[in-house]
Every structure is written in C-alpha cells, then in structure tokens.
C-alpha cells in the first residue's frame, strides 16, 4: 500500500487569511442576504465580488507577475471554508478552478492574456461535464477540429457553474483523440448558447453550453493532460473546503435550535438521541477538516495529492450530507418548511456531494490506489 504521511503545514499567512475570511464572510453573508440572493438572476452580489477582488482573493493563486497575490491553492481553499460556512453566493470557487487549469496547462501567451484579467476581477469557470454524467473528466464527447488555424467546436456541456456570469469559460473537448481545453471569451459567444439549468442548490447558477459550430482561433486551445488534472484537484479541494465550512454552519444552526426548542418540558438538546448524533457529526467535522488541511498542504507543495484529495472529498461530502439530513429531522415540523435554514445547507451538501465525484466514486478509486 502507498505510504501515507500526516503532514499539515499551516503558515502564519494562512492563519491570518483564515481570520480575515471568517470575519468577512460572517459580515457579508448573513442568512438574510443568502435568501435575498436566491431569487436574484445572477445569484451573487457584484459589490461583494469587487471587495473580494480588492482583497486580492480572485487572484490569490495567480503569480505576482500576472497581477495576482502569488499564493497557492492551499490559501484559496483556506478562504473557501468560511464561504461554505456562511453559504456565501459567489463565483469564487469556479474562478479558482479555472485559474488552476490555466496555471497548470496554458502556455505563456494564454496565461498572459487571461490571468491578469482574472486578478482584476474577471469571473472564470470550467465546462467539463456533459449529460452522460461521467465524473472521469477525460471522458469527453465534445470535439475540436483545427483547419487553417481555426478550431471548430462541437458538442454540449452541462452543469457549467456560474456560466451565465462568467467572462471566461474553459470547455473540455477532444482534439485529435486527446483531451484539450478551449478558452472561450463569453463576450464573443453568440446569443442562445447558454441554457440555464435548474439545480438543487439554489445559491448557485448553472447552465448548459452549446458548442455546436463555434469557431475559435487555434491558439485558444490548451493541450496536454495537466490542465484537466488541475481542474479535478482544485475541484476536489475547494468542494472539501466548502463542505467543511458547511458542516460547521449546519451544526451551528442545529445546536442553536436544540438549545431553544422545548418538548415535554425540557430542551430537546438534552435528549441523548439528538445529542449523540450531533457529537458524531462533530467527530466527522474534525476528521474532515484534518483531511482538508492535509490535502491542501500536499497541493501547495506540489506533492502527489490524489489519495489525500479523494479521502478528503469522500469524508467531507458524506458527513455534510448526513449533517444536512439530520438538521432537517431535528428541526421537526419547522424543518419541513421552506423558512428553515437547514434546507439551504442540505441543498448545498447535496450539490457538493455530487460535484467532482461522490463518496462511493472516490472510495472505488481509492480502493484501486490503496488495495491494488
């Protein structure tokens, strides 16, 4: 079996960043603001996005020479945890995933064109899933064909997060039998190419993307396998970070209710069947956070992180889905209503569970990696 280590590096810089992000998300994303945004068209508050850009967060992992903060995916994930906790609606995670793809796979000219824009606040996302529902990002039905310097695309992408607000899209296609990514400037997209999709987490906006007959300069293609791997890794780490924040958030909502509501003459939180479940969820949260910061440590150090990432994603998304499910139940009749905040967390948990592979998917991959 592959030897596992237990390293967690948490620099003073990450520690300060975490403190800042915790305070920021608490202030900018009270539950009332989350609910107000549910009904909005874009799903996020551009003023908050501008503030995040000013703090250097959109470009946190972008090198300084491209106008970014010059940090790593570990810092990006550190910020994402409190965002998950407060259900902050933001295209932050999609943008970070696109940044990692550009850093890992784009050539110098492509980087010089895209990264400074993102550091200045442009929103980016990746279009890597199709209606087949395959989590293996290299299984791609869409294609690109190059003729005389022009790439003609074909195919349909689905579940593209934040597509309707993105400035840049990175869409996976097959080029000469190998995966590639097409960099698409949404300003140049003909109308009607994006079809909004209805998804379980209403704090998010998703769309399908129609690539049929779309022409791009061949120079807008990213080739080689590195970018897709970077998308998977960043997707797993950021989903884990959001889930860890979400577990803590939904546990808070639940514990508050158990400390308030009375039944049969006592606080319902004094009943052991509720108490012990909360203790189990806390145990799951502690393990999940440990997996998160270990995986972040390996990613930041450019060490092999596949096992750590899959473990982190499997553990955190199972715990979050369970915590969300129990939060509904423990709120009793109120839990069955739209007004109970537990449903917001359950929806988020389910979205995250099925993003970039659910727990059984990752355990199956881990079995091959760990058990031979």
């Amino acid at each position, binding site marked *: 079996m592959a030897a596992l280590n237990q390293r967690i590096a948490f620099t003073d810089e990450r520690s300060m960043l975490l403190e800042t992000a915790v305070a920021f998300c608490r202030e900018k994303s009270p539950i009332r603001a989350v609910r107000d945004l549910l009904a909005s068209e874009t799903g996020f508050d551009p003023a908050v996005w501008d503030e995040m850009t000013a703090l250097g967060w959109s470009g946190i992992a972008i090198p300084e020479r491209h106008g970014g903060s010059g940090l790593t995916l570990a810092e990006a994930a550190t910020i994402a945890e409190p965002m998950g906790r407060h259900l902050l609606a933001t295209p932050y995670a999609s943008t970070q995933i696109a940044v990692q793809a550009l850093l890992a796979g784009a050539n110098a000219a492509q980087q010089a064109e895209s990264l400074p824009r993102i550091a200045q606040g442009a929103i980016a996302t990746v279009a890597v899933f199709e209606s087949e529902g395959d989590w293996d990002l290299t299984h791609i039905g869409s294609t690109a064909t190059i003729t005389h310097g022009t790439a003609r695309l074909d195919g349909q992408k689905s579940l593209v997060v934040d597509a309707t607000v993105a400035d840049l899209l990175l869409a996976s296609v097959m080029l000469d039998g190998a995966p590639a990514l097409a960099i698409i400037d949404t300003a140049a997209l003909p109308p009607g190419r994006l079809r909004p999709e209805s998804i379980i987490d209403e704090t998010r906006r998703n769309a399908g993307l129609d690539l049929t007959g779309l022409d791009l300069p061949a120079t807008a293609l990213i080739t080689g396998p590195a970018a897709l791997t970077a998308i998977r890794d960043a997707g797993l780490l950021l989903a884990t970070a959001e889930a860890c924040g979400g577990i803590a958030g939904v*546990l808070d909502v639940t514990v508050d209710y158990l*400390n308030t509501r009375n039944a049969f003459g*006592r606080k319902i939180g004094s009943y052991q069947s509720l108490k*012990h479940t909360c203790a189990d969820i806390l145990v799951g949260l*502690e393990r999940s956070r440990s997996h998160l910061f270990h995986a972040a440590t390996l990613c930041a150090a450019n060490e092999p992180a596949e096992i750590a990432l899959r473990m982190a994603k499997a553990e955190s998304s199972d715990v979050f889905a369970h915590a969300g499910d129990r939060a509904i139940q423990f709120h009793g009749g109120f839990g069955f209503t739209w007004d109970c905040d537990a449903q917001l967390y359950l929806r988020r948990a389910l979205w995250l569970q099925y993003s970039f592979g659910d727990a*059984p998917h990752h355990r*199956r991959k881990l079995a091959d990696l760990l058990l031979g």
Partner: protein
Amino acid sequence: MTDLDSFRTEVAAWFEANRPPEPDFLLPESFMEVGTDQQFDYLRAWQRKIYEAGYLGMAWPTQYGGGGKPQAFQDIVNAEMTRQKVPFVPNTIGLNWAGPLILAIGTEAEKQRYIKNILSAEDIWCQGFSEPDNGSDLAATTTRATSDGDHYILNGAKIWTSLGSYAKYMILLARTEPGSTRYAGLSYFLCPMHTPGIETQPIRKLTGEYGFTQTFFRDARIPADCLMGREGEGWKIAMMTLTFERGATGGQAGGIARQALNVHDVLELAQTARRDGRPAIEDPLMRDQLVRFLIEDQGDRLTATRGTIPALCTERPHAIPLSQKLRTSEHRRRLLQFALTLQGANAPRWVGDANTFEGGKWQRAYFNSFSSTIGGGTSQIQANIVAERVLGLPKD
C-alpha cells in the same frame, strides 16, 4: 554513523535473534489480558530477558538497576519492539506508572527496595484505584485504611485489578480520614499483596478468559511505612500516577505494553481471508469498507497532527482532545467487528479451533475491544461529554 544509529542497528539485531519462539497458545493482547499462568510465565521470562540484555529502564539511574543513559536509547528500543511486533512486557504498571512515581517522589529506601525488581519482573505490580461502586470516579473512593500503631488496617474492595492474581505489590488509594469526602482524606499506599486479609478473585471476561481480579480487603494489616508521602496526599499522588499512565510525563522504564491489531493488520487479513471462494480483498463491498476504515484511520492520525496547530482549532479548542477516546475506541471496535466479516464462513470459529484464523485472535480482539468503549467512561458518556462540553448542549 552516530551512536544512536549504531545502537538502533544493534537493537534490531538483538530482537531478531532473541525474539521468543511462537507459543502453542494464544498470547494476550496487553497487560490487561494476562489470564493464565502459561501466558504469565512466558511474558515474565521475556521481560527478564530484555532487562538482562540492558534494554529496559535504560534511562533510569544505575544505582537502582537502571541503565543511566539518555531517554533516546529507550525510545529506540520501544520503536524497534513495535516495528518487529515482538511480544509485550507484562509489568507495565510497575515499569510505567509505579516505577516513575517512586523515582520521582519516593524515599531512598523505597527506591532501593522496589525499582530493580520492577525492571526484572521479579515483583509484579497492580493498581487499586477503581472500586465496584465507583467506576472511574476516584474521588468517591471508600476503601478504608485505619491507622493502628505501626500498621494500617485495610477494609473495602477494588475492581478491575489487572495482573491482580500475579502482583506482589499494589499502588492503592484508600481513605485514611474517617468521615472525609471526595479529594480530601485520601492516602496512597505501596501495598504488599501477600498479606492476610487481602484476597483476589479472578473476573471471567466475555471472552471466557481471565485477566482482572476483584480485590477484597478484610482487616488486612500492612506496615505503616507502606504509606507513600503523608496522610491526605493520596489524591495528589494518584493524579501524578495518572500523568505517568497517560504518558503525559516522561520517566517511564519503556518496553511496549500491548500488541494491538490495527488497520494495516486488517489489510493483511483481507489478503488471506476468503469470502465466497476468493480472497476477501477482491470483494467490491469489502473493498469499500476497507477504504472507509483507512479514511477514518488517516483522519484520526491527521486530527492528532492538526490538534498541535492552534490556528486550526480556534473555534472549539477542546473538540479534538475531548473526542479522542470516542473516535478511536469506536473506530477500533467497528474495525475488529469488520475483521470477522472478512473471514466469511470461517468467521464464527473461536479460539482453539484448528481451522480458525491466526488462533482466533480476531474474534477475541473484537470482544476485548469493548474494554476501551466501556472502560474509562463509556462511549455514550463520551458522546454526552462532547455534546455538552464542546457543543454546549444541555445536560439531561
């Protein structure tokens, strides 16, 4: 090559050459499980052999039989014993709890009298803290020690006395001040077990084996110089003992106290055990379970690391330490339960059956795993503690 490196090589070679032959009976898993004379004699001889080779009490003072070397040498020995999975040494309570205590606060006479025989396993030690009615609430101790001239007269009972049948001495917590309650009025004794009026009665465990006794004191007279420290200092000295017991303070003689089965042993089992006619590790459902245990095990190891980084424990600083027992003991119980599942149709065999896996140690280990989900506060109490003290939920 440094001194320590060459020492490591020497130690590795010694244990390879001297590990005792596999016995034709099942060894206990820890010092708490020693239940037969056969097991006891085998383990005691093994400890004596290690001590005579100079590999126990290496950092203890030479005038009492120790090695007088830096702790790093003993650490190397302990690590090598774990790595080579050699049998454990049985006199844990003497080596790691009573011994360091005597060296720290004992009189010169006590050190001369007890230390060397602890190391050689000549004198086995046991502990008399828990009582039948008090579980782990030590402040509720009711066993009495009544001063009578140059003796104390003991009356009462202790329970869960590991090695009680074999011990020559007991570290004993008893109440010397009549009418006192809780922490005050307790005293600490180094009590000779072979005293008229002290009787041990073995407790038969769910495995069918022995390993603990209940210990009864009926007008047992022990010499007054068995008192450690002064009357009334019992609570303080008991707490000091617990810091040695938990390894929170250095000073232990060393050696290993158990041979616990872990997730990696379960992985090995999965390669050899068969279900439905093929290796268990090829069964997709077994693979999924194994990975779950590996994720959990790694999660707990990582959590131990994260617990040392304050910036990652700011919100609930007590969450990691207060949940540790609940997390690890329940993980272990479920892991061992699963180890039976891996054995498929052979799982219901028991110790002594010719076709059982590795002598039935998995079945026995599963049963014994309840000692940690029950002892020291049950998992249900631990969950209450986590819910109330970490999450702030109301008491019931």
